[in-house]
């Protein structure tokens, strides 16, 4: 597949802020955007002494939902740990996180081919719940400014196994994960707003003088767009290969490097040798008891799994072949997914629903019970054409909703959209046209099927507005087949 001299070994750590009402361990508003700095803060998230953090039940629930969507195992007990580091975005000088007993263990996400079949599977190490840090703005004069509105916002970390084998696959995986957390409804996952962020772990493998070389891993932090994921992986892999070939320190180094992605220069900037896991001095958070989710009715995974919405891959497996490319844009919008499933359930073909979602979205969004099916009925029966409906959809919607008693057919009639079809008129018109055009009829019968357009046109003309083209075409065919 690749003409490169090496293979990619890539794993992603993806963070997503949960869309809860309140923060993770205090009841401050979870609103890191659009507030004055340091307004949504309290003694807990400011890290003041003597405060007691209490985990947000809804955040625990949303994390379990993500785990269930990834088919993770949800252990009976999970616990909280303190992860220590010094940086001004963390007022406590530690982050409450989960180390060895996370809420979700294992899991996988499939990437599908356009026909809905499984193309590749990316396994997960874990999904755990923690708190976000505040925001630092570097200012002039050697100072930084700290805003702690984001400090303590619930953050899930989804850690994949190093199953990704190309930059493109990694980008797709990230897009797919974003789609998934949105579909489950736990995060808005807007990467531009930092609601979803990604760290990339990458090394490469290649054959050299008869042995397989695996380079030490670099962790690239701050990879905050799907495009950056793709670019940073390609860039760092090539850098590792070049360093190895140039007989650089990478040949003997054993520790992991930490680096940051510079979006402006498209460079991987090496920061330091990563402190070993022990250097975060993890220890169990003494202030927060463990969570036993199966003991709580509202958090029991066996119950929660039944509340999961249908996931993108399940929808793709059913409809990707029939609907084609339009399906992807529907999957990225929860409301459109709802319409899609609702109208299919009510009996409309998937392809038609997908088309309507694209062509007449405003009609769908204000439609009342039965409206859509009534309009579809008129179109299916040939009483109205979809193009005529689409052209006047705004007027149609207004008229239809102008009174409770108004039916779709009334509206179509008022707006002159009804295609009248008088079978008697049509039949006599067909008889007349056939009699008057023996040459066309002979041509048709000798195999020139395209001539039927001419015959239908003549019939339509004669029927003078009392015939529907689709029905006429059928009737003409039937007549000529006699």
């Amino acid at each position, binding site marked *: 597949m690749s003409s490169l001299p090496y293979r990619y070994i890539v794993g992603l750590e993806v*963070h997503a802020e949960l869309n809860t*009402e*309140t923060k993770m361990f*205090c*009841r*401050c*508003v979870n609103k890191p955007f659009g507030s*004055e*700095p*340091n*307004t949504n*803060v*309290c*003694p*807990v998230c*400011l890290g*003041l002494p003597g405060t007691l953090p*209490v*985990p*947000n*039940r*809804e*955040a625990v629930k949303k994390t379990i939902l993500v785990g269930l969507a990834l088919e993770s195992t949800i252990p009976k007990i999970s*616990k909280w740990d303190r*992860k220590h*580091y*010094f*940086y*001004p*975005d*963390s007022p406590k000088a530690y*982050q409450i*996180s989960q180390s060895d007993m996370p809420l979700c263990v294992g899991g996988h996400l499939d990437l599908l081919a356009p026909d809905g079949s499984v193309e590749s599977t990316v396994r997960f190490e874990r999904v755990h719940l*923690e*708190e*976000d*840090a505040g925001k630092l*703005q*570097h*200012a002039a004069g*050697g*100072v*930084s*400014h*700290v*805003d*702690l509105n984001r400090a303590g916002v619930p953050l899930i970390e989804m850690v994949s196994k190093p199953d990704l084998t190309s930059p493109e696959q990694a980008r797709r995986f990230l897009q797919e994960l974003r789609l998934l957390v949105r579909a489950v409804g736990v995060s808005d996952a807007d990467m531009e707003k930092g609601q979803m962020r990604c760290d990339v772990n990458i090394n490469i493998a290649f054959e050299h003088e008869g042995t397989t070389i695996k380079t030490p891993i670099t962790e690239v*932090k701050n990879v905050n767009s799907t495009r950056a994921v793709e670019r940073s992986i390609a860039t760092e892999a090539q850098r590792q290969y070049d360093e190895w070939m140039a007989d650089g320190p990478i040949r003997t180094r054993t520790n992991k490097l930490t680096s*940051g992605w510079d979006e402006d220069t498209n460079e991987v900037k090496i*920061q*330091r040798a990563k402190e070993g896991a022990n250097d*975060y001095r993890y220890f*169990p958070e*003494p202030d*927060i*008891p*463990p*969570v*036993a989710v199966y*003991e709580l009715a509202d958090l029991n995974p066996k119950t929660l799994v039944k509340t999961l919405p249908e996931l993108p891959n399940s929808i793709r497996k059913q409809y990707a072949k029939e609907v084609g490319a339009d399906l992807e844009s529907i999957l990225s919008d929860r409301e459109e997914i709802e319409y899609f499933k609702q109208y299919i359930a009510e009996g409309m073909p998937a392809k038609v629903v997908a088309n309507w979602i694209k062509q007449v979205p405003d009609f769908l969004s204000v439609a009342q019970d039965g409206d859509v099916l009534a309009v579809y009925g008129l179109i299916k029966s040939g009483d109205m054409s979809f193009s005529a409906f689409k052209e006047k959809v705004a007027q149609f919607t207004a008229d239809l909703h102008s009174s409770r008693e108004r039916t779709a057919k009334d509206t179509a009639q008022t707006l002159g959209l009804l295609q009248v079809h008088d079978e008697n008129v049509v039949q006599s018109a067909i008889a007349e046209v056939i009699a008057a055009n023996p040459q066309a009829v002979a041509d048709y019968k000798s195999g020139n099927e395209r001539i039927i357009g001419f015959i239908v046109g003549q019939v339509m003309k004669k029927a003078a507005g009392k015939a529907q083209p689709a029905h006429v075409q059928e009737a003409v065919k039937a007549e000529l087949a006699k």
Partner: protein
Amino acid sequence: MNELSRDDIRHLSHLSRLELTDEEYARYATQLSSVVQYVAQLQSVDTSSVQAHLGVTGLTNVLADDVVREKGTPADIEPMDVINKAPRHHGRLIEVRAVLGGEVGAA
């Protein structure tokens, strides 16, 4: 590892962002070693029949509903009171010395 070396202390003081003198490295190596040795006596206790536990309170599932606290509750502080107590601030922002090229946040 009951006996801590100067390098251990150097490492710990770096993690804690403490600047120590050579004399202090030596002094704290001795002091911290004796603390560790004291606690290490626990290792002589036979715990083979004791179940591991995850906290000292024996509690589980202490969780809070996802509801914003009401005005006037103790946690409802005036943030400016805290901001004003920071050594430096810039309007509503707390001001710190720039940390560049150093550690990236743990999250």
